[in-house]
């Protein structure tokens, strides 16, 4: 049996309500219990309005749940103030967005430097590391280009490099391939897989893209703010370890063969 809170991310009974003081007019998340193992690649899927982006925001410490607990790397982030949450986002988490969200007036290099400058590094240290990261994602000959001079795929690679700037443990992606064509999307997916398998980053993405999902270690399916089920496209030892009840509809296993 695994100890509690050993997973790199864990939510317990997390609920998020929106409404007038105290009332719950809209329930975005209802009693979510989920966890992510260190070094795994997890997809969160579900129809529009299922709460997947909200869940990602909660895991990413951007959104405080109405109730429940969230553990990042074993530490409960509930009750932390804005500054403490910002620190966790800075040190432990890297974000990748569907629309890349790069600073348009800064070069690729400058964009990757930003998290390092926020962390207090000097201009030279930041530049140095940013160069290495851009090299890692294959953009060393595009460093002084501005986002408007880069293709969608290139911009997303810059965004990924930026997310790695402060050596996070976790990379969170909100539909990272959403704005990209099939071929480019596949390239980004491969980059993420490489970061996961070769560099050991834990990766959690919200996605509609079935290809991304197929290559995940685990898929968490949400419906109407609750966990519908968790599936394991490629088999998993967790699947064999134990059973856990989640949400109202229970836990369903899937034992499809690995696609490799």
């Amino acid at each position, binding site marked *: 049996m695994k100890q509690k809170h050993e997973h790199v991310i864990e939510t317990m009974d997390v609920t998020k309500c929106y409404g007038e003081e105290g009332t719950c007019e809209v329930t975005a998340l209802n009693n979510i219990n989920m966890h992510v193992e260190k070094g795994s690649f997890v997809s969160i899927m579900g129809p529009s309005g299922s709460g997947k982006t909200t869940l990602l925001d909660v895991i990413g410490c*951007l959104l405080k749940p109405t109730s429940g607990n969230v553990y990042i790397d074993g530490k409960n982030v509930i009750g932390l103030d804005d500054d403490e949450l910002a620190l966790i*986002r800075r*040190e432990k988490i890297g974000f990748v967005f569907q629309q890349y969200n790069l600073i348009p007036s800064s070069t690729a290099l400058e964009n990757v430097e930003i998290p390092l400058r926020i962390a207090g590094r000097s201009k030279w240290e930041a530049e140095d590391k940013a160069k290495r990261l851009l090299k890692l994602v294959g953009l060393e000959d595009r460093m002084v280009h501005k986002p408007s001079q880069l293709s969608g795929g290139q911009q997303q690679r810059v965004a990924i490099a930026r997310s790695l700037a402060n050596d996070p443990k976790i990379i969170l992606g909100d539909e990272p391939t959403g704005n990209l064509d099939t071929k480019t999307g596949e390239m980004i997916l491969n980059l993420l897989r490489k970061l996961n398998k070769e560099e050991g980053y834990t990766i959690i993405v919200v996605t509609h893209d079935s290809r991304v999902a197929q290559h995940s270690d685990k898929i968490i399916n949400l419906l109407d703010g609750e966990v519908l089920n968790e599936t394991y496209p490629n088999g998993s030892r967790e699947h064999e370890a134990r059973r856990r009840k989640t949400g109202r509809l229970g836990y369903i296993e899937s034992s499809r063969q690995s696609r490799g």
Partner: protein
Amino acid sequence: MLDLALKNIFRNRTRTILTVLGILIGIGAIVALGSIAEGIDASVQSSLQLTASKITIMPAGSGLFSAGNDITPEDLELLQGIGGVADIVPVVVAIGPIQFSGPEYIVIGIEPGKTEYFVGENIGMYQGRPLEEGDSGAAMVGRTTAERYSLQVGDSWTVDEEDFEIVGIIEETGISDIDASILVTLEDLKNVLETENYYSVYVIPDDIKDTEKIAAEVEDASEDLTALTSEELARQASQIVDQIRFFTFGIGAIAAFVGGLGVMNTMIMAVMERRKEIGVMKAIGATNRMVLTQILTESALMSLIGGVGGVLLGMGASFLLSAGFGGQISPVVTPMLALEGVSFALLLGVVGGLYPARNASRLDPVEALRYE
């Protein structure tokens, strides 16, 4: 993060330039107008040097300047009765036509042997000789007057249709009251003006320490006279100059304030435009305070640039203004004034940027990120 702030404000170059210009013009106004006040102060300070170690007797109720020649011979007798006095120097004054930069000339009637008390000890003559006992129809002039009217020893000068011959030109003293003066004998001027009265009387104490005492004695002895020590004159002058400073600063400050509103407006717009970006910054790990500091730095930077530019503009303007004052007053931008200008600009920048900076720091990252 100063380089980032610099980069950010020049993202929209035109808008930044206009904003900076708003501050620049306002600060320029403060500095240019302030330089006039400082010039007046410098002029007054130099004039005050004349009053050192003397007691200036004026008609009661007048301050630095009297309305006319109103001290009677009886008043003079009273003064002559006061103890501890080394000398009494009555003076009569005639003022020439008033111009923009002051009266065209000031003629002072003074006893020939006592001109030293007015002109100063150890001041010699540039040309010719000083007034002497027995002179009639003679005048001595200061360097500035001589130059302005191209006067040489031997030329003649007319006051109220009486001619005076220039017998001497005083060497330059640096004090405009002296350099721009024309001195004739007391008797001559009294005759020309057809008056028995005096404009003011200088009382020279035996001992400088008795100045206050003698001044008090005079005031007790006569209702018609007021005795001004140099401290008293300095105090009054300082009050007037402060009022002028306050006034000139006030006008300039109103202009600068409008510039400050411009800064606030620019930053409010910038924050609105960069909403998503601010959300991303927070997602990446920037704290609320970092965002606040970033915005505040940008607005302070713009204002600082405007402030420095404004001081330079003010300096240029004050240089041009000095031509208009014709030498009576030289507007001067003192270091203090320059510092005030830059500081006020900085203040406007910080205060103006505070509201948008706080708003930016309070943006909810989730909302800001998803902002379209």
